[in-house]
């Protein structure tokens, strides 16, 4: 079913999420028309157990597509939120759900979630309280403040006090890991698209009487871009290799950290190959590169997740790197006999 599902999801995005739509949502912070189309498609319930019980493995190609199309909606996040809410027997809030990277209590009892990715479009938020409990809060009473970075849909979200209608998710809800993993998978999708765009441009743009793709110096750069896109995709795939909806923290760490490092190199190469046109508002490259730069930090940078991985490795006394990888990090025996071909 995987390929069919992913194909039909891609067709949906190709139809409703043109670069013009992306720009308009970024300008207006209003994605209601887009949301209506996406919601009607039925994909939001993918991870809801009662509706077919898809897993993170099944979500992987769809999340890649969200990144590739620079979809200006927390669709992957909403998909995951609906999956975990349904699994806990909780009702699903209407509208897009965003995932908060952090939460703090402020003087006077206010609750603040700074820098929420897609926060400007969310109708509800999954957040982790300082004490550790994961809640789902509607945004009805919250103040939403866009972060002010050009084009960004990130926002600070503040409630004057904890709303009474908070939904409480059970322990074991891996909110931070899910945020990181989803972001990593969006990045992997965006990187694939970045590669495709850059290859296309290098084949079209001629200088010195031939396409710049024919110059060795450019070819070598594009090879590196391809390598980084491949590595990020594999890292995200490792993170999504779960036969359920909860990610495993250390695998999510690999996904996010590796995708962030890949984005660093890949964005630089894509812009270098495109030259000045790549940084113009009207050329679509920026829709991907701005996101990749922003997503690098969302739900923890490479360094944050590297430290977590490092601590886990050091704590595993007597274990060499390979056994640690095989027992802790890599899907290994749990993996479905997937392709490879």
């Amino acid at each position, binding site marked *: 079913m995987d390929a069919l599902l992913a194909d039909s999801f891609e067709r949906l995005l190709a139809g409703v999420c043109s670069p013009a739509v992306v720009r308009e949502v970024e300008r207006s912070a209003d994605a209601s028309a887009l949301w209506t189309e996406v919601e009607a498609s039925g994909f939001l319930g993918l991870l809801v157990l009662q509706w077919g019980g898809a897993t993170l493995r099944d979500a992987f190609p769809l999340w890649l597509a969200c990144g590739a199309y620079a979809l200006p909606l927390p669709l992957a996040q909403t998909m995951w939120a609906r999956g975990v809410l349904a699994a806990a027997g909780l009702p699903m809030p209407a509208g897009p759900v965003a995932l908060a990277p952090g939460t703090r209590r402020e003087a006077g009892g206010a609750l603040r979630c700074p820098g929420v990715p897609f926060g400007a479009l969310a109708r509800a938020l999954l957040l982790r309280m300082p004490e550790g409990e994961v809640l789902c809060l509607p945004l009805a009473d919250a103040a939403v403040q866009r972060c002010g970075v050009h084009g960004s849909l990130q926002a600070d979200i503040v409630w004057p006090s904890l709303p009474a209608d908070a939904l409480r998710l059970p322990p074991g809800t891996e909110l931070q890991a899910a945020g990181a993993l989803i972001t990593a998978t969006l990045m992997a999708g965006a990187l694939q698209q970045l590669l495709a765009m850059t290859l296309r441009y290098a084949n079209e743009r001629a200088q010195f009487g031939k396409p710049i793709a024919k110059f060795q110096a450019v070819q070598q750069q594009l090879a590196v871009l391809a390598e980084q896109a491949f590595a990020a995709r594999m890292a995200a*795939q490792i993170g999504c290799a779960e036969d359920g909806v909860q990610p495993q923290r250390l695998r999510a760490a690999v996904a996010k950290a590796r995708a962030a490092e890949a984005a660093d190199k890949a964005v630089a190469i894509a812009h270098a190959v495109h030259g000045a046109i790549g940084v113009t508002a009207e050329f679509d490259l920026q829709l991907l590169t701005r996101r990749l730069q922003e997503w690098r930090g969302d739900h923890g940078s490479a360094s944050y997740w590297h430290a977590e991985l*490092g601590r886990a490795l050091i704590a595993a006394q007597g274990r*060499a790197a390979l056994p640690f990888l095989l027992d802790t990090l890599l899907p290994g025996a749990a993996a*479905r006999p997937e392709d490879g071909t």
Partner: protein
Amino acid sequence: MLQPLGLSRIPDSAEALRPAVRAFLDEALRGRPTDQLARSWMGFDADFSRALARQGWVGLTLPRDYGGGGKDAFHRFVLAEELLCRGAPVSAHWIADRQSGPLILKYGSQKQREFYLPKICSAEAFFCIGMSEPQSGSDLAGLRTRATRSADGWRLKGQKLWTTNAHRAHYMIALVRTHGTPEDRHKGLSQLIVDLSLPGVTVRTIGDLAGDAHFNEVFFDDVLLPADALVGDEGAGWAQVTAELAFERSGPERIYGSIVLFDAWIDYLRSLKQPSEADLILAGKLLAHLGPLREMSLALTARLAAGASPVIEAALVKDLGTEFEQALPNWLADALYASPEQAPPPMLLRTLHYVLQVCPTFSLRGGTREILRGVIARGLGLR
């Protein structure tokens, strides 16, 4: 065009090999110093290779009829990653096991298979690969060593250079010109098996910067070879070598080359009261590179096992892999001296510097970085 690499699963039967290999290595490697182990697939120990052969672990993928293990590429992947990650000195049999054996099986005559493969599997015959020449490195197609038909075989004249292990191997599989001139490039090349004990063969060892000797110059001064020295078809050498390079480039040795150093450093960090945050970040960074690399390497193995020849994907993984192998010692060299008053333990220091010294070769062997990126560019449709 490049196809994304998916996750693969090692079949249980192949995974079952792992504990046995680990137990064997616990015994066989006991007491070997870390800076020796760091040599891994550059470490030559014929006795070790024969001990491995007695376990049935040399020629694991070759058919049982020829003394091999009759196992698939996944079995070899498990064996290889365990050997490499422990730094087992596998150099003596490695080239025969990885390339020469499969090459002879695929392209060799029945007589050649029956003669060479059992010797490879028992680690009695070690092989080297004669490709580079003084005027022909990355530009392999320009090679000049020539074999001409003689009354009862071939007459070989020319010179190979940078041939790893030629001084202690029994045979070389040499890529030589059998037709035309260097200007004919890929046409007219053939592969010949050269018995290195024959008259007219002179091997001169070249020492390296780390105090080891593995490279050689090999001179062929009218060496007379039997007619059946030819492997595969006359003139098909380039295609055969390309297929062979997919084996050479896709193996896990392209990601694990610095792993003994990594483990030694991790053990050192564990011995400290409190590793620095920077050290934790670096340890995690290396792990976050290694994990996806390993799965990519495994995906190549899955494609090899399915009968494909993933030449372009292998180039991609090798380039990424060697970049990691080279970054590792360089990053550690910085980390270990982040507190200059705290000297690293001597063995860790020797291991670090050995890897630092030889790591430039990681992106030379089996195709330089620039050549590999050219192969990837071709896969991307740019050439």
